């Protein structure tokens, strides 16, 4: 069950990555990046179940926080038109 779910989530991640490639505007690419990082967190949690390792959840938490900071500051950078 968990293996099948992991494969489906990988397929969903690739479909979201296509939105990053074809997105008409810059903000479409940003929302694609946000959704892709949340699906990556789900894949890491599934890997933590499969391999029965606790430290993979710490990696998932760090991934969530770094994705938050990077997306927030790219959004602010674009809104202020390049002024930091």
């Amino acid at each position, binding site marked *: *069950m*968990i293996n099948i*779910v992991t494969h*489906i*989530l990988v397929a*969903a991640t690739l*479909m*979201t990555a296509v*939105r990053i490639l074809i997105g008409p*505007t810059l*903000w*479409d690419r*940003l*929302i*694609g990046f*946000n*959704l892709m990082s*949340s*699906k990556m*967190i*789900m894949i890491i*949690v599934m890997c*933590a*179940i499969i391999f029965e390792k*606790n430290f993979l*959840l*710490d990696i*998932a*938490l760090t991934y*969530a*926080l770094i994705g*938050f900071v990077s*997306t*927030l500051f790219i*959004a*602010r950078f*674009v*809104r202020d*038109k390049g002024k930091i």
Partner: protein
Amino acid sequence: MIRELIGNIIIGIGVVAVLLGVFGLYRFRDFYSRILIGSMIDTVGFITVCLGVIVRSGISWFSLKVLLLIAVVMIINPVITHAIASSAYHGGYRLQDEEDKDASDS
């Protein structure tokens, strides 16, 4: 054993929600519909999958860490969505109908 079965069913419901979110990302034509549907359904799917993981693994340090992950994502996902939508609005992105209305008003 029955706990694993219930957890697997909840994870399946969450994966269906995630797939609906990916479908909605391609279904709609304009940006604001896409950001609404994509982020909301994806947050629902994330929380449901992690609740399934908690039910599946019982009470342990593992499920406590997953609970912390749910708490973090419930805070930061709406904040990111608001930041992107606010950036699009203040950065000058408008829908086609609003542009026509603004032009007819002025």
